[in-house]
């Protein structure tokens, strides 16, 4: 049973709002007086997940669940899905267009960054959309 649970909407191509969910998460975690490293890792995971939804999908949600011993971040979107998850997990592999790269993203580090900063990660993707679940243990 989650001690805290909240869902945020993330709109496709809404670059101005990118990072807002992560900012919210930081504020929530700071109130809980969690270790700075846990806060940092959770925010990075959340931010990359947000960017992925904004860049690659038709829109989706990020759900934050806080348990006694962990934070779970669930990023769910509708969209074209990830064709080759193994390839997408490779650092530097990106399908992001040039305009995204000009914004400082689309470097092919999103999913690898999520993996590097979480203790558990799972991706399920089909032609209808993608669900990424990541957990950070306390």
């Amino acid at each position, binding site marked *: 049973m989650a001690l805290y649970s909240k869902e945020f909407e993330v709109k496709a191509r809404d670059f101005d709002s990118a990072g807002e969910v*992560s900012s919210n998460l930081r504020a929530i975690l700071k109130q809980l007086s969690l270790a700075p490293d846990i806060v940092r890792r959770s925010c990075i995971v959340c931010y990359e997940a947000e960017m992925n939804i904004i860049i690659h999908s038709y829109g989706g949600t990020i759900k934050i669940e806080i348990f006694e011993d962990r934070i779970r971040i669930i990023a769910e979107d509708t969209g074209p899905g990830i064709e080759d998850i193994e390839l997408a997990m490779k650092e530097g592999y990106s399908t992001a267009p040039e305009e995204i790269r000009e914004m*400082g993203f689309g470097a092919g580090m999103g999913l690898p960054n999520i993996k590097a900063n979480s203790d558990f990660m799972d991706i399920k993707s089909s032609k209808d959309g993608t669900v990424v679940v990541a957990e950070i243990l306390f």
Partner: protein
Amino acid sequence: MLAVKLREIKEILEAQVLLGEEKLEEEVFTACGADLMSDVLASRDEKAVLLTGLTNVQVVRTAEVVGDIKCIIFVRGKSPGDDVLEQAKKAGLVVMKTKYPLYIACGLLYSNGLTCRSGEKNGALQ
């Protein structure tokens, strides 16, 4: 590794302070330079100053997410938009701009003692 005051950084880079003039006495130990925010997020090193040629709001968001960045320095004489400064103000960041390109700006700070604090040798991925 030396403690360097933000005021000294301003002088070394002949920078213009766009935000946070009152915080220039704060000391920092580390810095990083990147135009790809994904690389900043990927780095596990502690970093207190971010030098970049990217001027959009994602730079501030990235600084917020990383958490330990106190100061953003825009290089090559680039100026951020008002939306970026507004966001940086909310985040309590110091913002400067310098005419130097990224490579030179980083080199000047590094040679003045602002290196990096890392388990990895000089921040290199192994």
